[in-house]
């Protein structure tokens, strides 16, 4: 069965101050899939998330998200906010509101975008916290949460409005190995159970490969690889997965050079 595309990039160019960041990028994100975007620092990974979320607009080319088209003309605020209410973004370090406790952080988007009574909001927050495996931390302030917990609370907040696209900006950065495992399982679990479509920008290639359906590799603003994790080994050599599995001495081949990691 052919899956509907939630996001379509068509020949997207983006740059500023004469610096080219994305150079004619085209790809689709099929519904229900998890796509990981790899590339060296400055390759344009986070720019893709900024373009999808309307924080920036392409210089040329189009991005279609659901019924919304983002082009160099921008999008009026009303439409942009309507589009954003259908997407969630997990920031690199969570971006929790430091003046609000856990409960109020998760309730914030619900209060701002609905007219639900406090009782219903309370129930919804409880459901979202359960979905990320957290309990009894309603009154804790963000500064008292561990890195992994803060990331999970931020995840609960980003699914508060039941989005159908979830974006993750470096979700594993700064976490201990156990928390990385918990977050990666959650990403997969939430994607499957809530019927989401996810796009993941990460440097943790091994963990991302384990949960992704598609892989996009960026180099110098262009897509050099758009395939599935099982095919990537045959394209770039059998040692590829081993390499990302921890055997860092064996393979310093073409692929690594192309993505600028060497």
């Amino acid at each position: 069965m052919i899956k509907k595309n939630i996001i379509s990039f068509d020949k997207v160019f983006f740059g500023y101050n004469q610096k080219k960041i994305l150079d004619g990028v085209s790809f689709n994100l099929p519904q229900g899939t998890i796509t990981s975007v790899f590339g060296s620092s400055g390759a344009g990974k986070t720019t893709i998330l900024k373009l999808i979320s309307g924080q920036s607009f392409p210089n040329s080319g189009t991005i279609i998200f659901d019924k919304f088209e983002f082009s160099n003309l921008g999008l009026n605020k009303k439409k942009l906010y309507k589009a954003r209410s259908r997407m969630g973004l997990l920031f690199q370090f969570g971006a929790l509101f430091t003046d609000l406790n856990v409960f109020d952080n998760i309730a914030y988007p619900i209060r701002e975008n609905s007219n639900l009574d406090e009782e219903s909001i309370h129930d919804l927050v409880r459901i979202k916290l359960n979905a990320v495996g957290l309990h009894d931390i309603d009154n804790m302030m963000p500064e008292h949460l561990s890195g992994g917990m803060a990331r999970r609370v931020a995840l609960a907040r980003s699914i508060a409005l039941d989005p159908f696209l979830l974006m993750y900006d470096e979700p594993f950065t700064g976490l201990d190995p156990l928390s990385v495992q918990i977050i990666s399982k959650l990403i997969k679990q939430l994607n499957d159970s809530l019927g989401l479509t996810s796009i993941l920008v990460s440097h943790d290639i091994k963990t991302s490969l384990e949960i992704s359906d598609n892989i996009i590799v960026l180099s110098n603003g262009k897509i050099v690889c758009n395939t599935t994790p099982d095919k990537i080994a045959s394209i770039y050599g059998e040692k590829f997965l081993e390499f990302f599995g921890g055997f860092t001495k064996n393979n310093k081949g073409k692929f690594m050079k192309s993505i600028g990691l060497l």
Partner: protein
Amino acid sequence: MNILAFKNISNLGEEFKLLLQLFANFFSLRQNYRQFVNDVFFTGALSIIIITISGFFVGLVLGLQGYETLKRFGSTEAVGTMVALSLIRELGPVITAILFSARAGSAITAKIGLMKSSDQLIAMEMMSVLPLKKIYVPLFYAGAISVPILTGIFCSVGVLGGYFITVVILGVDSGAFWSQMQNSVDLYHDILNGAIKSVCFALVINLIAIYEGTISKPTADGVSRAVTNTVVISALSVLAVDFILTSFMFTGA
């Protein structure tokens, strides 16, 4: 030099644009009244201690200096008038505004700068919430309410300081102190103009504080520079605006 001049003019344009947006979104306070009340506490109530202590000492110094000067002319009873008029017309609004910019203005800039550097402002926009309505407008008008009240506190405590040093310590007649003050302080010409000054100062300080927060670089150094800019630019702007307002309000009176 040209680039610097262009940057400053461009900043002024941006600030004016922000000011218009803040005025245009005044009615969004209705939806954000809780935030507004919190911000009145954040900017106003938390400044009361510094304002009260400063007001008392300024009153003491004014009383002492005034007494020593007026003694030469044999009119020490007029010290109450001198203390009150100096405080209400000039020192009260100006010193309160400068202290407010150092205490609350810097806090506003730091708050917005840190929210920016920790992605909280973008997170808010991702939830379809405008930081302008949710953060900036309540802070802006909270300051406009707080500063006149703080100025009133500053002047009142200052007068008490003046009373303490001149009447209690130096022996000026209490009745003369109060009656001369009552006779010379005019409700509209002095108190209302002082209040207008303090509102104008509050708007200037809050505008600068919010603007500096929004343009701060998302780094520790960037936020600290923005806070410094807020205090320096606010203090200078208050003095400049004070001169302009005084030239309209009190000349020829």
